[in-house]
């Protein structure tokens, strides 16, 4: 009998060892490769931006930082970039749609790693960080200013700093106080009455404002998370210690993310984004103006005088391949929006381009159900994830925040 007991004990011990083994992260080589490709240590160093010769000039970044936080950079002195891009909130505002001078129709995007984007805004209606920075300045719902007023303001408040970076300011003495090709009817009329050389002078100062702000924003980069520590340990064969160790639920979530749930198809690379535009059937928001995503952005970026092919670009045209080879038509760009990075996403609800979903659970439920798009065709297909699987995906996404 005692022999029987000892054999049973041995068997039980073997079973425990086996089960214990199952509790360890067990990934196939293909899974390990994918996980390694998502880790922050594979993020290459930031490439120079040849379209902005001031991109890595410290004085330009310093001026850009001043301008970023300066509410004087708005029509009524109440709104700055930092009103919506809040420094203590991942440079976003936790609102479903941004509120500047007015109520916009889009969710504020966070800024970590923003300088790595080929396209800006949810719909990619700008093609460089400096051209992006100029857009809210004149949007009547955001900072609601006009470029002539900004040029005067720069001269008055920051003239010396500006000239140390960009060279002499143009003569603005005969430039009207308020004028812009994108402003009110009155501002447009004043702009159109200005000689072309004067319009050029103002546009040049305006472009340099964008270049300074972009130089500042280049310093905002994603931070290492629990996931990255876990991924590095997995890649090196080290046993994850402390909070780098994943719970069984987080491991299941990671496996689903890179496997059955297909999240990694678009949310790939160390920033968890393919930098492309997709229709994923996210519903429109009642009460907001019609929003067709990338379809309308294509014409806007082509018409932007500050785009890469325009005369305010520094360097040569070889930097403009994204614009040159962009997809301009076809059904796939209808209601297509940019894949957002998922880094630190768990700490910045609500989600999607107009804050449609209040929680990550709602986001994951949307992708599991994959409803058809109201316009255009959704690229995602139903996953029919179980409650446990959806919760595991959310648990994994939270590891990109801690």
């Amino acid at each position, binding site marked *: 009998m005692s022999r029987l007991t000892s054999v049973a004990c041995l068997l039980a011990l073997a079973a425990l060892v086996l089960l214990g083994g199952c509790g360890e992260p067990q990934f196939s080589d293909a899974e390990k490769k994918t996980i390694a490709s998502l880790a922050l240590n594979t993020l290459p160093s930031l490439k120079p931006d040849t379209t902005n010769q001031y991109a890595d000039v410290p004085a330009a970044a310093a001026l850009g930082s001043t301008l970023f936080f300066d509410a004087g950079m708005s029509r009524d002195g109440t709104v700055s970039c930092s009103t919506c891009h809040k420094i203590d909130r991942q440079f976003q505002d936790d609102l479903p749609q941004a509120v500047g001078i007015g109520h916009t129709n889009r969710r504020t995007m966070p800024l970590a790693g923003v300088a790595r984007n080929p396209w800006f805004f949810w719909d990619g209606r700008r093609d460089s960080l400096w051209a992006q920075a100029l857009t809210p300045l004149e949007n009547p719902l955001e900072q609601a200013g006009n470029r002539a007023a900004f040029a005067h303001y720069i001269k008055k408040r920051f003239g010396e700093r500006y000239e140390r970076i960009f060279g002499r300011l143009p003569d603005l003495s005969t430039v009207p106080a308020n004028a812009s090709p994108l402003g009110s009817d009155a501002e447009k009329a004043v702009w159109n009455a200005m000689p072309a050389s004067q319009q050029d002078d103002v546009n040049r100062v305006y472009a340099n404002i964008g270049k300074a702000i972009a130089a500042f924003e280049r310093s905002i980069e994603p931070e290492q998370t629990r996931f990255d520590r876990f991924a590095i340990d997995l890649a090196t064969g080290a046993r994850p210690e402390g909070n780098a160790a994943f719970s069984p639920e987080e491991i299941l979530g990671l496996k689903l993310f890179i496997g059955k749930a297909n999240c990694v198809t678009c949310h790939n690379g160390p920033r968890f984004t*393919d930098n492309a535009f997709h229709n994923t059937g996210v519903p429109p928001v009642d009460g907001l103006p019609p929003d067709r995503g990338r379809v309308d952005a294509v014409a806007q970026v082509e018409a932007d005088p500050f785009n890469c092919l325009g005369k305010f670009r520094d360097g040569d045209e070889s930097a403009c391949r994204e614009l040159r*080879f962009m997809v301009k038509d076809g059904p796939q760009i209808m209601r297509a929006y940019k894949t957002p990075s998922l880094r630190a996403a768990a700490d910045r609800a609500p989600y999607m381009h107009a804050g449609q979903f209040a929680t990550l659970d709602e986001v994951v439920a949307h992708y599991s159900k994959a409803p058809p798009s109201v316009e255009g065709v959704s690229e995602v297909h139903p996953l029919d994830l179980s409650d446990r699987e959806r919760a595991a995906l959310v648990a994994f996404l939270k590891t990109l925040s801690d």
Partner: protein
Amino acid sequence: MASIWRYILAGLGLAALLVGIVAVVYLTLPHSASGPDRSRSKKTANGLFVASFEPERGVIRQGELQSWLLTLKTAAGAPVEGAAITVSGGMPQHNHGLPTSPQATDYLGEGRYRIDGVKFTMSGWWQLHFGISAAAGSDSVVFNVVL
């Protein structure tokens, strides 16, 4: 009585061993690479040309705009000059097109055409369709790229 238990235990042990061996074989077996034809050189659909398609710098980098070379020869092996080339494509399994609009931007001589603006934003099966018009006539060819 004890002998029956011994047989059961032995049976269990053998079964466990078998499961272990099967698992090891399954995990280490190379997965056969089936899927679309990945050849980088082939005859065009109607046999007018022989086309080859290679990344200009030799390697495919996911998420980066890259230039590729499309080399066109006649069936007899002569380089095809002055061809008009259209490019389209997408991911058959995802039901979407290319994320960029690649174009034939330069003729490099000896039947070689630079196809610039190619970008593969995700892993999986991509297709590139080329429409080719030259003195010999019009033809088309499809290349599969699997990342």
